């Protein structure tokens, strides 16, 4: 008898209320822990995190170093399987998809992608068509058209004949993005895409992502250190701190002065900006310099 009650309890417990149908990405109580060995204590834990994103939405994941941003992104990309909870894209558990299917639905732009042998920009973008090909994957005219369009979409069509190791950081970022677009994904994940870019290129990139989300219906998740860019361009922001998702909501909901000061350990000023997009300014301790 007691077994039956236990089972039914477990069943009702597992039936977490489903996310609304229009949600594309839905993360329910997903957690993860890294450890050196099977029995060692975990070195880092990402506690149960929930977040949701619709079509055309841009979500930013912000937080200090080692707060779990990249772990969360790897859970979303399916590279890691959550220890508990679920990470679903259109109702499918992402870590259970086979690599090819997953690559057709999720594209990832990583921080660094080192190249061993010289590659031309065009060849590099064509790699994005890999999950669509047959065994030897000779590119079809359709693949070429899609790769050309992807390059054009990021404004890098003129680079197609150049070598990857001879273009600038900003140009490279565009080409890497073009390769991701050539995958024709539903979900686009970017790990600190603004890292080595100057402010002009940063704004450019985020504007581009915004436009792409709206025109092509991508759901975009960006990990970034740039609080103001996140506030300016993201629909939703997840604030992570020491492996915990402290807040998830619109920039205005998440950017509270006390909260940000506590998380980043610095004196900050948060001003409400236009259209509910707050601005964060660091306050230098001026006492030393005042006359």
């Amino acid at each position: 008898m007691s077994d039956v009650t236990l089972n039914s309890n477990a069943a009702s417990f597992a039936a977490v209320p489903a996310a609304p149908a229009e949600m594309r990405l839905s993360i329910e109580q997903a957690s993860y822990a890294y450890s050196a060995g099977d029995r060692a204590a975990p070195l880092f834990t990402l506690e149960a995190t929930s977040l949701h994103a619709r079509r055309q939405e841009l979500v930013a994941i912000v937080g200090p170093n080692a707060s779990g941003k990249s772990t969360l992104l790897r859970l979303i990309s399916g590279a890691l399987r959550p220890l508990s909870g679920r990470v679903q894209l259109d109702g499918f558990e992402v870590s259970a998809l086979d690599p090819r299917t997953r690559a057709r639905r999720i594209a990832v732009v990583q921080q660094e992608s080192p190249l061993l042998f010289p590659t031309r920009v065009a060849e590099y973008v064509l790699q994005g068509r890999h999950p669509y090909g047959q065994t030897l994957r000779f590119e079809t005219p359709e693949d070429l058209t899609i790769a050309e369009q992807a390059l054009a979409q990021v404004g890098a069509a003129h680079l197609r004949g150049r070598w990857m190791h001879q273009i600038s950081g900003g140009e490279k970022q565009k080409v890497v993005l073009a390769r991701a677009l050539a995958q024709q994904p539903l979900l686009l994940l970017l790990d600190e895409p603004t890292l080595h870019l100057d402010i002009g290129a940063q704004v450019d990139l985020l504007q581009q992502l915004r436009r792409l989300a709206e025109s092509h219906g991508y759901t975009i998740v960006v990990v970034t250190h740039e609080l103001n860019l996140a506030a300016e361009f993201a629909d939703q922001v997840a604030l992570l701190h020491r492996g915990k998702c402290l807040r998830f909501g619109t920039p205005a909901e998440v950017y509270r002065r006390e909260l940000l000061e506590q998380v980043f350990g610095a004196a900050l000023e948060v001003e409400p900006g236009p259209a509910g997009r707050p601005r964060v300014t660091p306050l230098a301790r001026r006492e030393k310099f005042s006359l």
Partner: protein
Amino acid sequence: MQPLTPKRLAWICGSLAAVLLIVVIVSLKVGAVPISVIDLVSSLGRVAIGRSAQLPSEYSLIVFEIRLPRILLGILVGAALSVAGAGFQALLRNPLADPYVLGVSSGAALGAIISLIVASRASFAMPLAAFAGALATIAGVYFLGRRGGQLDSHILLLAGIITASFLSALIMFLMTTLSGGELRGIAFWLMGDLTSTKTPVGLGWLFTVLLLAIGAIYTTAADLNLLLSGEQEAMHLGVDVPRVKLVVYVSASLLTGLAVSVSGAIGYVGLLVPHVMRLLFGSDHRLLIPTTALGGAITIVVADTLARTIVSPTELPVGAMTAMAGAPVFIYLLRRRLQ
């Protein structure tokens, strides 16, 4: 954009095959006993359509019993070692990887020698033992070459070179247990030698295994292109990374074991040939694997022809020829990488 098309692939491979054919004919011709090219070609043609050769019987003996089997072995060994090298380079993301430098050839040689001592009568034992030795060595070197969970290309090379010298010491130790006559044969064989046309199993078998292993690696060619930028990247682009690694490690070890069991440890071919092919045709593995196989065959046939003609009537081991050409190239590539 100009991507790889089946037509371009066929053209390039066809041209290399033609070069190989010419090299084979020249190699059949030159040697201690000169034979005219016209006689040779017409005889080859007659044999190919199933009739007896036109050459006088003593020439026929030299061409078909001595030179041709040796050339076929050269083709086999060159193709096997070069494709194994290209496979290791892609998986280890290290352009300096090569079955010889990584110690895999020594592992295969040790396996082969153990099988000679333990079970000298069983003809299939030697290639199988060489394969097992190759596989065990690459697994060991792979784990030695890691630092903090990441493959470190310089530590990997060091691990390979140290492993090779350790295995060579073991081979020396085992050789002292052998008698004098066997010893000279093995010493020559270890240097990389194609003179022993008496293969442990039939040439037909060897070529079947060669084609199967190269074919297996070729099915992963498009995946290898992506693996060059890292396993994470490749996975995000839809590559089933564990499957590709398994297929390529096993096939490349099989190729190394195959080559070593018939010809001993011929060095640097697996380094030199993929590198030249990359310079000529680019680094797309769909083109690189077949061109490397053909280029390796050409290289070994040429090297062996030189080895048996430049100090005629005596002969050099072909491994000495490839090492003389390959070692300086290795040093050059290493220096260029460090700069």
